[in-house]
């Protein structure tokens, strides 16, 4: 009986945000976008209307209740005062990088420092509609999933960034994308990114999420589609550093072609109250390699959910996934790792590991490895551990004169080591180790 009431309430609640979004959608109808994009938006909105916001009845959202996040109204598409914004919080000491800044999801050219590099194209997504790679790939990958949040983003995204790396181009330095949340009133932002890396091209992308001082509560629904064409190589870092007012639903859909490599390093630190990441990798050709690494160091009542799909569609591919969660205080971490090995995907080599170190008596972890294997000649392994501080190790370190705080930091570094040691970029590795130390002290 109570279930029925909840259900009624959530329908009512969703309707109020629905109405806000529907009004916005009608405004967009009148925009001067290409008819192709308009039609994509219309289809997506129809899908979203049909699906509605996900509820805990949806298996993929079982532990992740967004009821309270959508049970309110937000400012949509508000122009923000960007005059006094600073991005110091996103600085990575010693990292020489191109910088792109998005404020509440809007690409702000003025803050971006992007020297011309032949073969690297960076534009706002709304200005990229004439690009060949846009026309070929926009909404062709993420929208194949049945995600309501992707459908909503496709229908109503307001801005975002388009990145294309031309054939054979090796981008000279990392591209640092800084996502800043700011504003005095609660707002909802939808960013849409498309990254296409052509054959033999290489790029390293670092995305930092930060919050301006005194920012109101914000909900961000971001979708990034990534295409790695033949023999392309992509290193991709997520550094989630937003403040408690930040709530993020991020969907990353990666499509990989022959001989390509995609590595994702997904790090969340004390701060944002709510994070849900979906990272899906489609290995749709032979000899593809993908690595997914995650470190989530949380505190207070943070809730961070990482859902990943590694989809082996063709033979002779390799995937390697390792996530470490360290929830402190009353934080909750969710990990769901799906690995599909399709019937065609013989000689697949897939590895998955999830280790959890619970610090704090009220911290929680929900973890679920999910392997679905339809081929018979494959090597797949997965493992999952739950643990706490090793008191023996802690005493050993302290008995050598190492202070308790330093000893704890050493042990958490040690726990994270399997992941941090895999970072392709040493500067970012040291930065992340520093953030781990800071995250333990705070």
């Amino acid at each position: 009986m109570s279930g029925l009431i909840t259900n009624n309430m959530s329908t009512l609640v969703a309707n109020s945000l629905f109405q806000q979004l529907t009004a916005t959608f009608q405004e967009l109808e009148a925009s001067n976008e290409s008819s192709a994009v308009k039609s994509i938006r219309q289809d997506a909105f129809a899908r979203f209307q049909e699906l509605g916001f996900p509820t805990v009845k949806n298996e993929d959202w079982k532990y992740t209740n967004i009821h309270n996040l959508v049970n309110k109204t937000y400012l949509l598409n508000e122009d923000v005062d960007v005059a006094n914004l600073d991005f110091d919080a996103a600085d990575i000491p010693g990292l020489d990088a191109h910088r792109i800044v998005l404020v509440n999801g809007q690409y702000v050219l003025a803050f971006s420092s992007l020297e011309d590099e032949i073969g690297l194209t960076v534009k706002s997504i709304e200005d990229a509609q004439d690009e060949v790679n846009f026309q070929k790939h926009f909404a062709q990958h993420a929208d194949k999933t049945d995600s309501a949040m992707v459908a909503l983003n496709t229908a109503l995204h307001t801005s975002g960034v388009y990145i294309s790396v031309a054939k054979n181009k090796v981008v000279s330095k990392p591209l640092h994308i800084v996502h800043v949340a700011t504003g005095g009133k609660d707002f909802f932002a939808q960013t849409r990114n498309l990254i296409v890396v052509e054959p033999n091209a290489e790029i390293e992308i670092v995305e930092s999420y930060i919050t301006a001082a005194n920012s109101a509560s914000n909900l961000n629904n971001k979708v990034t589609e990534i295409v790695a064409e033949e023999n392309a190589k992509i290193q991709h870092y997520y550094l989630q550093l937003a403040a408690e007012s930040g709530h993020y639903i991020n969907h990353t859909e990666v499509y990989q072609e022959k001989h390509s490599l995609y590595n994702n390093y997904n790090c969340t630190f004390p701060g944002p109250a709510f994070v849900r990441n979906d990272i899906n990798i489609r290995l749709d050709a032979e000899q593809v390699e993908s690595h997914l690494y995650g470190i989530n160091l949380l505190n207070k009542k943070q809730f961070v959910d990482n859902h990943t799909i590694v989809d082996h569609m063709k033979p002779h591919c390799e995937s390697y996934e390792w996530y470490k969660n360290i929830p402190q205080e009353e934080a909750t971490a969710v990990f769901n790792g799906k690995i599909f090995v399709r019937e065609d995907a013989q000689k697949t080599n897939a590895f998955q590991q999830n280790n959890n170190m619970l610090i704090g008596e009220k911290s929680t972890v929900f973890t679920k490895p999910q392997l679905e294997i339809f081929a018979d000649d494959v090597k797949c392994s997965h493992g999952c551990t739950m643990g706490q501080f090793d008191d023996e190790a802690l005493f050993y370190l302290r008995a050598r004169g190492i202070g308790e705080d330093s000893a704890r930091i050493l042990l958490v570094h040690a726990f994270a080591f399997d992941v941090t040691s895999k970072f392709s970029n040493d500067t970012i590795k040291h930065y992340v180790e520093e953030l781990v130390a800071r995250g333990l002290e705070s």
Partner: protein
Amino acid sequence: MLSIKNLHASVEDKQILKGLNLEIKAGEVHAIMGPNGAGKSTLGNVLAGRDTYEVTGGQVLLDGVDLLDLSPEDRAREGLFLAFQYPVEIPGVSNINFLKTAVNDIREYKGLPPMEAKEFLQTVKDKQKLVEFSANLANRSLNEGFSGGEKKRNEIFQLAMLNPKLAILDETDSGLDIDALRIVSNGVNQLRSENNAFVVITHYQRLLDYIVPDFVHVLYDGRIVKSGPKELALELEEKGYDWLKELDTQNA
């Protein structure tokens, strides 16, 4: 240097140490022997500050500083060192980083600046040579994948690096073959000086052939029931511990 007076300690409400007294002066080596369950390892752990042991009475002074009031790290910084019976493997913590942190935390406690990187590495090299511990430590995690003997040698190497006033060797000979025993003992003998002292906890007289003690104490049922010169160890080897039961009753 170390003065233990009427020390009582329990673990999970079971009384283990029942009024232990021991005086150790600088430059001395004391061996503590005794049957299983007498409280030998408890003594080492209580002195080092392991929190599973509860001190229920008594006093421990290291050069006048009351150790029982201090955290394990401050005891180490005051100059106490426990060589573990079972050194812990800590994957992901590098030997070098661990040592550097320990050395510099101790220096900071003493008001000294951190050791220069070059000096530190030179010290590592020198001390490794001194205690004949040639394992390549640079890219290896603390004790990870070390054999039993290597772990014990690493304890002695750490001892050499941290240069404590008082070192307690808790059954350092257990699990060592004769060659490893000789190397570990040589290391300890190299480190002996008139400014430091050693407490060697062992089951067997064998170790004391290599590390020759000034005094031998017999720990039985939580108390030292007999003390004597190094020859006492030979007597124990010969007669076992059974005859001590009477001694214990007499004392009580």
